């Protein structure tokens, strides 16, 4: 009896061993498939990107050659030098940075202030005002595009306008026009409000008992606790603004105010063939967002989870 049991056990062990081996093999094959798919699609995804960087260090002659060379034959910075010499790229770069940073700072400040008010204070009309704020999310930019252009043109006392907003170009062709209409973001307010709601009221009440003003509570209690959400929103806003093309295209005609995407896009439309310089310009335009992304990658990814965008 005891022998039989031992025999059975051995058989059982052998069977489960082969099962385990089969499972292991299957897991291995499955992993191989996963890696193959990931590597293949990953390569396809970065290829255009790598090509841009390679091309920016190549001579035009080498760019126009089949087979394409993925490693520059005679790498040089000539394209960059030429690009800076030919186009006022430094100016474009400054404009992009100035507008993107200013808009980000203003948006974060105004949105967090509003978010705090909506999340943590009670006052008559709060829910109605919050609904009004959310309502702006429903309206696509194309509807407000044309009227906003007309509104900017008629801002009084700017750009040669009189009191009634006549006679000049107002905020068109100005940093004001590039920045002011982007100052309020309902998306940012909503996002920060959701985050601030998780802060316990007791903390704020304790500060109120100590006689802190509402602004001080906002600045010294709420803001430090919201750092992850602020970081995520800030990165998001900066990249979005750096990327923005449509609005500058519409309101800027003065070459000195072109942002980098606008300058490059008009460059493509005007000179159809200067690919070497274009690739250099593209690398320059991508670098800031790339750096921000690599530095704050975790925030980027976490931001999406934090913001409840799922």
């Amino acid at each position, binding site marked *: 009896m005891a022998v039989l049991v031992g025999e059975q056990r051995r058989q059982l062990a052998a069977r489960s061993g082969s099962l385990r081996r089969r499972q292991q093999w299957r897991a291995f094959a499955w992993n191989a498939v996963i890696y193959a798919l990931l590597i293949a699609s990953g390569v396809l995804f970065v290829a255009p990107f790598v*090509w841009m960087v390679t091309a920016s260090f190549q001579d035009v002659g080498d760019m126009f050659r089949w087979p394409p060379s993925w490693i520059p034959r005679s790498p040089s910075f000539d394209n960059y030098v030429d690009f800076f010499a030919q186009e006022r790229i430094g100016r474009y770069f400054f404009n992009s940075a100035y507008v993107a940073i200013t808009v980000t700072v203003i948006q974060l400040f105004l949105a967090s202030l509003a978010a705090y008010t909506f999340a943590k204070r*009670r*006052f008559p009309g709060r829910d109605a005002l919050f609904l009004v704020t959310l309502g702006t999310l429903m309206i696509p930019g194309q509807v407000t595009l*044309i009227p906003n252009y007309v509104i900017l043109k008629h801002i009084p006392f700017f750009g040669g306008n009189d009191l009634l907003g006549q006679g000049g170009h107002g905020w068109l062709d100005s940093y004001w026009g590039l920045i*002011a209409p982007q100052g309020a973001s*309902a998306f940012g307010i909503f996002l920060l409000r959701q985050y601030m709601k998780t802060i316990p009221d007791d903390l704020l009440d304790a500060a109120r008992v100590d006689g802190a003003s509402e602004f001080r509570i906002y600045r010294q209690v709420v803001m430090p606790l919201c750092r992850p959400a602020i970081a995520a929103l800030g990165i998001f806003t900066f*990249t979005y603004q750096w990327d923005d093309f449509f609005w500058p295209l519409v309101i800027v005609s003065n070459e000195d105010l072109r942002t980098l995407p606008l300058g*490059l896009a008009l460059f493509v439309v005007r000179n159809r063939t200067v690919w070497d310089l274009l690739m250099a310009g593209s690398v320059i335009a991508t670098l800031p*967002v790339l750096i921000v*992304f690599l530095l704050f990658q975790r925030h980027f990814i976490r931001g999406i989870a934090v913001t409840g965008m799922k």
Partner: protein
Amino acid sequence: MAVGSAAIQRQRPAPPRRGGRRRVLREMRKQWSAYLFLSPVLLLFAVFTFFSVGYAFYLSFHQWNILEPQKPFVGLDNYARLLEDERFRQAILNTVYYTAASVPLTIGFGLLVALLLNNQIRARGLFRALFYLPVVTPLVIASIIWKWVYNGDFGLLNYYLIKLNIIQEPLLWLADKNLAMPAVILTSVWKSVGFAMVVYLAGLQGIPEDYYDAAKIDGANGFRRLRDITIPLLSSTTLFLVVISVLGSFQVFTQIFVMTNGGPLGRTRTIVWYIYQTAFKNFDMGYAAAMAYALFALMFGFTLLQMRFLRREVEY
């Protein structure tokens, strides 16, 4: 302590009852700083959103050219013109084509990549960054790179397709009336798969491991676990992505402007491209405002439809 809690009580009163107008006013005076904190954003919204929407409506009823002093009222003429405008009809069809192709491709591929990355694999962060790289690349730059990739004479795409014997002759991707739109769509998919991937990854993390364990015990294989657990539980994520992507696709402009500028033969003219041309090249702003309202109506209708259609699927 007792004094303190009394102060807190005063800070948060019960909602005012009917007829308490004076109390409301007193409360408003006491909470004056709340209104102060909100005033900058509310002012900006008032001018650049709410006034603007009304003003667009006003414009759409006028023959409104920014260069002409006379801007006569024309009633519904601009909207009537829309119905007969062959180019507008074409722009709508092109936009629908773009949306119908790019949204499912982006979301499907994003889900696939997310599922692959959701396994125990090495260099997960690296892969995630690779797929996310196009998302952070400025759209204008992405369009420029791809314009080069599609180049008829020296483009990468033609070179490798010929080498793999898929095509014999180089194709003029962006100048061919049947290929231009697919080419633009491919660029957009490349640009936004990473976003869908990250959102799906966040969604996948929210699915409890227990569900899979239970299914395994019941003998469900990988495909069935995917079909019966993962995809249904991701449906709210999918809904979010579909709504966001469709609304974004309806507004496609930059890729078109840089890569094809509406050509060839108007095959890549989209609604927003046409609005831009009408308003800022022809300065026919009244008509363009009417178009913008038509787009708004289209987007609004689509959102309602999607909400209703997809909500049913969520309640599986």
